[in-house]
């Protein structure tokens, strides 16, 4: 890892993760919230690969592949739910989904 020190990768990953975290909490559009979750998962991938390089073993890289697969599976289920919800409610605003708060 010549050139860029390891700390920078971790810092970038932390910044991306925090961006995603704040995005989920602040934004009200479901699709944007979902994208923020994907951003969080990808920041984890960056951290995992950096640590894998640091420790010189492959555990982190293996996990990052699983994360990619799981993220893809989550998109399938999540987008199906969002599309169905848009059909029923005509909106993808999380604040409109308040039927259950009685």
């Amino acid at each position: 890892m010549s050139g860029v020190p390891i700390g920078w990768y971790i810092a970038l990953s932390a910044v991306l993760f925090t961006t995603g975290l704040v995005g989920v909490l602040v934004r009200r559009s479901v699709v944007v919230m979902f994208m923020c979750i994907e951003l969080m998962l990808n920041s984890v991938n960056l951290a995992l690969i950096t640590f894998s390089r640091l420790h010189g073993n492959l555990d982190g890289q293996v996990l990052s592949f699983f994360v990619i697969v799981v993220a893809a599976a989550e998109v399938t289920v999540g987008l199906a739910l969002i599309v169905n919800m848009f059909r029923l409610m005509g909106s993808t605003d999380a604040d409109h989904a308040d039927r259950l708060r009685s």
Partner: protein
Amino acid sequence: MILLAQAIPQIPWAALSPELALFGVGILVLLLETAGDRRVAASAAVAGLLSGGGLLAIVQLDQVILPALVILAALTQLALTYVWQRRPRVLSALLSALGLLATMGLVAWQWVVVSDGGLVQPQSVLADMVAVDGVALFTRVIVCSAALITIPLGWMYLEDRRVHRAEYYPLLLFSAVGMNLLASSADLIMVFIAVEVLSLGLYVMSGFATRDLTSQESAFKYFLLGAFSSAILLYGIALTYGVTGSTNIAEAGRALTLAGGSALTLAAMGLLLVGFAFKTALVPFHMWTPDVYQGAPTPVTGFMAAGTKAAAFAAFIRVFVGAFAPLEWSWVPVIWTLAVITMLGGAILAVVQTDVKRMLGYSAIAHAGYAAIGLLSVNAAGVGGMLFYLLVYAMMSVGAFGVLSLIERRQQRAVQIADLRGLWRRNPVPTIMLGLFLFSLAGIPGTAGFMAKLAVFRAGLQADQVALVIVAVISSVIAAFFYLRVTVAMIIEDEPDDLAREAPAVLTIGAQAGLALTAAAVVVLGVIPGAVVELSASAASLVR
């Protein structure tokens, strides 16, 4: 040939057999549903393939019992498919139930194999990825019995709502596989994958009523917060790996003993804690629970409450008591605080609810707090007590939500407490059942709920957590109020005219059997819990 045998890693089929069997049945049910009218042909093909493989194994490997069982299973599914070929739902439900029973049989067999003079001997297999220990085996039993009882109890509910579609049973089995894996994962990679397998199934099942806005909303909230909490959990896993250089829980624990508590370690632990607190619904990470429990189809809610809680607590205890034991000073006070506000918050918020399912959702939160006492004891008695608690909670919640799904069916809508007034007059059996489950949830002596609370409270006292136990008792007293309120409404108050005109709930044979099983479990575990308590105590072994 010899070289090839060396290159292929040894796979411990026996240790993985419960998951493999359950997953195989799930695939089979899915295949038969997809095959449509050609399901007999598909089933015959599967039977031929499995029997051929079994015969080959008998000839080549000199093993008789296991291949014979495979052949028996193959022929059984063929016979069942042939008999029920015109009733695909009955077929799916039957096959799924048999698969769950077979899985429980395999778990029992494994228990006999690994237990040595009482205590289950922990071991880990598949490159230390999967743990075979008491916690894993006991949780598998909880999950499988919850799924098994959910099938007959949910049958008529799904039929009436016209949402009895083909995917239901495979999804149920797949999320049960995820729960089993989560309970037995000895590696953080497995923890993440298992969490996702169980969640993906449950997201779809919560939104199973595709035309029902409340069901959709619940699925959608569950999905968003579930994925969010998974991401947080995952970042915790990544940081743990960064600090320790291994994703294996036991190895990470050994590395942490040497490393001590650096800032990065504490950050990793905090993120893992938040992730697990989301999954087990500890206050303040509980906000999804009432919404999801209220909106999801009622049988699904019962299964979700029972299974997810058991599996998530098993993983919670494995990661924190297993890996982070050296840092006990840092996480015990945090979980202590969470447990206290969970017990009080869950009970107090439940008091003001009018929707019965939502009320049970808040009560589930309070129960997660009681189970956390077992975790906080950080000793064998605590682990055993927690396992017993989770088993009893699974029976109570599957039973209570099962009765609710029968009553909801009568009214074709969500049940408010006001709708239960005078239920006794026209539906004596469901009333008695619901009353029994509510008494047990409240922890009235003579029911299983009381014995379970006693087990975790005793473990808490042994570990000098006196304040925690006092808070738990206060919370139980508050909780008893709203359970009794429902019971009073059912038995003492008069039935309103519009409800009196409705037909009484129909009890199918399956529903009767499911309710009888759960009620028997609640009564037997409340009166003579000895054997099962000993079993849960002997299951209090973790892979270290």
